[in-house]
């Protein structure tokens, strides 16, 4: 195959990702003139929307930033509000919140791998034809996805835009019987997860072996493979408390995109499953470490396509760790179904002097920050939300710039597919990535 001297790629609204993104490549006589990852999604201005709103609705509004990670957004938002007012949670509720994040992680990763990535690996355009050609596999994926969703429903009330999560805890929590049933359902799912793992193992050779050194950022916590809580960890720098998130996420604006870009120690960094794996793999459950071994995933892994495998590893981790958390809750003799009341009218919570609060959680696509400032009546005066996909945009761009010259000699459709797969590997959540709030410009 000879070199492509001229090549124009314009993948408008790349499919099987959440939100709208374009890939534009122009090559003239072997020279790359343009290589861009564009995000033309309509901006939604959440940071401006929440100004003037009361502390007890912010989580409701900001949940709407993203349908897929609405539990994560809700939790980041609640943590920010709780930090601002010094609201403490019970151990029980923290465990339930961790379960909620696991549920979301499971649901999102299964959706991504099963419905969005699998078609690429199997050479079809969507999961729909697979339903007739590979009914058993599709039904297996559907079953796991369903269990994950039922888990969110049970903990949060609803999978998308959860109702039970409120400042200070839960309006309603599952009974022990319900938790037991959930545990049984999860245990029954192991077989299915193994089937999917084996299927992916057989297809894994189709993942391109491309590497580019970059910085990885994720929450870290000495006790836990961090999702709910931790410090900001980096493969390039020492970890720091989340209050210093702005030092890590320097956001900037590029003209071809309505989403903001971010950089830290280098020109770009990566967040998400692979970043978490690279930073926290020692804290993974036994079974998930085994899966990583099966796929030859080793820290530090610089191949962005391996994010897909890191997601599979996390599916196993979230699944196993959920069972552990449920066991702990079941063993807790003081577990009762006391619920938190939503004090819509008067915040009865202790006020701290600082009315600014920052909340960070790991959502499927990476680290997510919400930062709110409230006035003395409990109305929001300022907000900033930094979304994982935004933090990844610059890294996607950098990967593309590194990848394209390496594959220019391949047929156009192959180049297109590899680029699409690259973008998809990041599992970008573009609709949320544009809901950017106020940023400092440097």
């Amino acid at each position, binding site marked *: 195959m000879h070199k492509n001297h001229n090549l124009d790629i314009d993948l408008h609204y790349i*499919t099987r990702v959440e939100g709208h993104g374009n890939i534009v490549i122009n090559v003239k006589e072997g020279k790359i003139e343009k290589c861009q990852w564009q995000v033309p999604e*309509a901006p939604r201005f959440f*940071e401006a929307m929440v100004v003037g*709103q009361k502390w007890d609705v912010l989580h409701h509004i900001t949940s*709407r930033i993203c349908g897929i990670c609405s539990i994560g957004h809700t939790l980041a938002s609640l943590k920010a509000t709780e930090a601002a007012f010094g609201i403490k949670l019970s151990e029980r509720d923290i465990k339930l919140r961790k379960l909620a994040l696991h549920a979301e992680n499971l649901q999102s990763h299964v959706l991504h791998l099963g419905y969005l990535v699998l078609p690429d690996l199997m050479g079809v355009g969507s999961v729909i034809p697979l339903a007739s050609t590979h009914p058993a596999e599709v039904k297996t994926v559907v079953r796991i996805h369903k269990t994950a969703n039922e888990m969110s429903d049970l903990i949060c009330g609803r999978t*998308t835009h959860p109702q039970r999560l409120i400042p200070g805890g839960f309006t309603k929590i599952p009974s022990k019987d319900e938790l037991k049933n959930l545990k049984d359902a999860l245990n029954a799912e192991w077989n299915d997860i193994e089937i999917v793992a084996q299927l992916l193992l057989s297809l894994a050779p189709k993942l391109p072996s491309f590497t580019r050194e970059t910085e990885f950022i994720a929450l870290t916590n000495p006790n836990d493979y961090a999702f709910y809580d931790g410090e900001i960890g980096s493969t390039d720098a020492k970890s720091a408390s989340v209050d210093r998130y702005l030092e890590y996420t320097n956001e900037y604006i590029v003209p071809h995109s309505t989403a903001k870009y971010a950089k830290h120690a280098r020109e770009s960094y990566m967040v998400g499953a692979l970043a978490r794996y690279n930073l926290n793999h020692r804290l993974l459950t036994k079974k998930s470490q085994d899966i990583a071994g099966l796929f030859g995933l080793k820290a530090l892994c610089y191949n962005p396509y391996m994010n897909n495998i890191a997601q599979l590893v996390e599916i196993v981790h979230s699944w196993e760790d959920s069972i552990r958390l449920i066991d702990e809750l079941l063993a807790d003799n003081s577990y009762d179904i006391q619920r938190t009341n*939503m004090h819509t009218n008067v915040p009865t919570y202790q006020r701290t002097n600082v009315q600014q609060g920052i909340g960070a959680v790991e959502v499927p696509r990476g680290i997510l920050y919400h930062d709110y400032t409230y006035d003395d009546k409990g109305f929001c005066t300022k907000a900033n939300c930094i979304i994982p996909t935004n933090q990844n945009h610059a890294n996607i761009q950098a990967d593309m710039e590194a990848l394209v010259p390496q594959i220019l000699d391949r047929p156009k459709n192959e180049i297109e597919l590899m680029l699409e797969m690259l973008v998809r590997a990041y599992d970008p959540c573009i609709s949320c990535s544009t809901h950017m709030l106020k940023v400092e410009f440097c």
Partner: protein
Amino acid sequence: MKPRIAFFDFASCEGDQLQIVNLEERLLELLQHVEVVSFREAMKEHSDNYDIAFIEGSCTRASDEERLKKIRANAKIVVALGSCATIGGINCIKNYRNQTEVRKEVYGDKYELFDTYLARPIEAVIKVDYKVPQCPINKEEFLSVAKALLTGQKPFIPDYPVCVECKMNGNVCVFEKGMTCVGPVTRAGCGSCCVNEGAICWGCRGLIDNPNTDAHKEVLEKYNLTPQEVMNKFKLYFGWSDTNAQKPQS
């Protein structure tokens, strides 16, 4: 021939399309009755030849109007999905502020790169045949609408307030629990799911056709809400339709 259906999205969280994916095995069953020809979030193929277009999201910039009009021209039936598409949803909160200010607040001096105008339901741009409200849509209601359309019927979307379903569910009224809600003026159909879960009705399905909003504002004030708090309650989801609220600024 099976009806050809297509999904589109505008300014939204894509949670409604996710609800459709979340139908799980029932989605597979539904797929036996229809042919999906466009679903960007889930498939690569795309065709402009479709009978029913499901649209999620609000129209928030003039540049999106053309794409909407094209969809309308191609489709026999247009169904709006979710609060953003049916009532403008949460996107309309920004309508209460000056739009330039909003852009500056989020994007600083580069604000001009970011096109936006008053967020609106798609009905404000093109004719919509049926509306499936809620944030996110209720899977069961989506199925009932789909079944109605597949059998040539007009779908049933209630025109009574959430209180009706809340009472049928035997809930304790949130006002008796020291909270307040907008269920009395909000369109039912969700089965009062938020109240069932211990929360309040936020109004995500929009106002009923003939809501007694004046009465409700009075009641909210009687329950000690300040005028600003009352207004916020209405701003949350009723921004486009509640003409009594502060007029949106362009």
